[in-house]
């Protein structure tokens, strides 16, 4: 199963809106929270529609519009979204209204828009697209599940053009609660220091990343999703190694064919040690990178990694700050393996290759 990336729309804490500029200069943040750089929404949303939309919905609709325009298509054959948290801002608004008004006077807007599938549904309504529309919610493998569904649909019909997304927002309340719970580093000066602190926790992030994927070759394609797989709660590193070995060999590749390994290292000591052990044992001579200092940690951050990998394959260049083991890709980057896991529980592998 594979699919070409025809178009991209990316709203992230980095300057990722313009696909013609890569790699841009790294945007630096102080503290433990990264926020998206938002574009001018009026380009994609009418003011009368915008007034009812939460921030994430505006990000999702705009990134989808940018992505479709990039791919040169007006409406997709399917909309498949991955999200860990769904519409947090509307959910918080709705729940706070219940508390503030003693369970009376509930207004409809935030309730209607508090569901996980709001973004996919709203895009469908705006595009008048009444075709396949699904949202996957599965913690840190939500995007991979959406990607897997996309690949299966394209296997059935390679001519389909699917709008695939990974989207999650970071609201003030969610950040405060998770910060109090110890999710985020307290002692960090900023995102450029992420791997320099030997402590628990990471930095918080968010993003709305959309791809148009298709089974058809096209001169404008960025890269090719050549495989995705997930793996739950290994009992030992041996199991993880077998999973990775099987994933690579089943795609007809050898370890030395991987030109770049992009890991989900996020500064959390315990979690990063899993990556270090695997990297040292299985990929000792492979250029290895990370990306969460650019976008922060959030459930669908692997969509950002896919964007990063696709742009590296398309342009042949990469941000200097992502390299972590001193080894750099030599020559063309043909195969990129993205390896993401959280708490050694949900592991995911995505293979990106040249078209």
């Amino acid at each position, binding site marked *: 199963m594979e699919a070409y990336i025809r178009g991209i729309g990316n709203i992230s804490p980095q300057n990722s809106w313009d696909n013609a500029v890569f790699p841009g200069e790294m945007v630096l943040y102080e503290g433990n929270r990264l926020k998206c750089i938002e574009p001018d929404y009026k380009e994609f949303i009418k003011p009368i529609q915008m007034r009812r939309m939460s921030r994430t919905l505006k990000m999702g609709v705009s990134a989808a519009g940018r992505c479709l325009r990039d791919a040169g298509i007006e409406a997709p054959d399917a909309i498949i979204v991955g999200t860990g948290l769904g519409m947090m801002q509307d959910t918080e608004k709705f729940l706070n209204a219940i508390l503030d008004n003693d369970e009376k*006077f*509930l207004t409809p807007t935030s309730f209607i828009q508090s569901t996980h599938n709001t973004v996919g549904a709203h895009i469908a309504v705006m595009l008048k697209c009444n075709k396949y529309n699904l949202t996957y919610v599965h913690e840190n493998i939500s995007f991979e599940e959406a990607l897997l569904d996309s690949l299966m649909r394209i296997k059935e019909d390679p001519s389909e053009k699917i709008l695939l997304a990974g989207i999650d927002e970071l609201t003030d309340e969610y950040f405060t609660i998770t910060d109090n719970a110890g999710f985020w580093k307290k002692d960090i000066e900023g995102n450029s220091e992420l791997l320099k602190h030997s402590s628990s926790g990471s930095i918080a992030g968010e993003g709305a990343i959309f791809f148009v994927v298709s089974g058809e070759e096209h001169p404008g394609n960025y890269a090719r999703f050549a495989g995705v797989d997930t793996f739950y709660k290994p009992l030992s590193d041996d199991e993880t190694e077998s999973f990775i070995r099987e994933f690579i060999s089943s795609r007809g590749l050898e370890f030395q064919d991987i030109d770049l390994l992009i890991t989900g290292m996020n500064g959390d000591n315990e979690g990063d040690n899993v990556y270090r052990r695997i990297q040292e044992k299985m990929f000792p001579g492979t250029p290895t990178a990370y990306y969460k200092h650019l976008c922060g940690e959030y459930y669908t951050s692997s969509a950002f990694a896919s964007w990063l990998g696709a742009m590296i394959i398309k342009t042949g260049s990469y941000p200097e700050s992502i390299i972590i083991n001193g080894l750099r890709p030599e020559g063309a980057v043909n195969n990129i393996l993205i390896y993401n896991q959280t708490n050694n529980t949900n592991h995911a592998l995505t293979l990106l290759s040249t078209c």
Partner: protein
Amino acid sequence: MEELIKKLKVEIIEVLNLEEMEPGDIDSDAALFGEGLGLDSIDALELIVLLEKNYGIKIEDPKDGRKIFFSIRTMAEFITENQK
């Protein structure tokens, strides 16, 4: 009545997120739905909740909504007549 109309305009701008509008931009006698302010059915639900929450008035018969919510002035008149 004019004070109530002014207050209603401020409340409607807030509840319906009419971010780029000022109370002075809304004509007290213009239609709220359709040609006028361009509100829709979800806005109608928001306005029903606004009447109940801020003025303690419950609309018993939904058919009355069309008349009550025709304009800001008809809303103000309805509130004046029904507020206890």
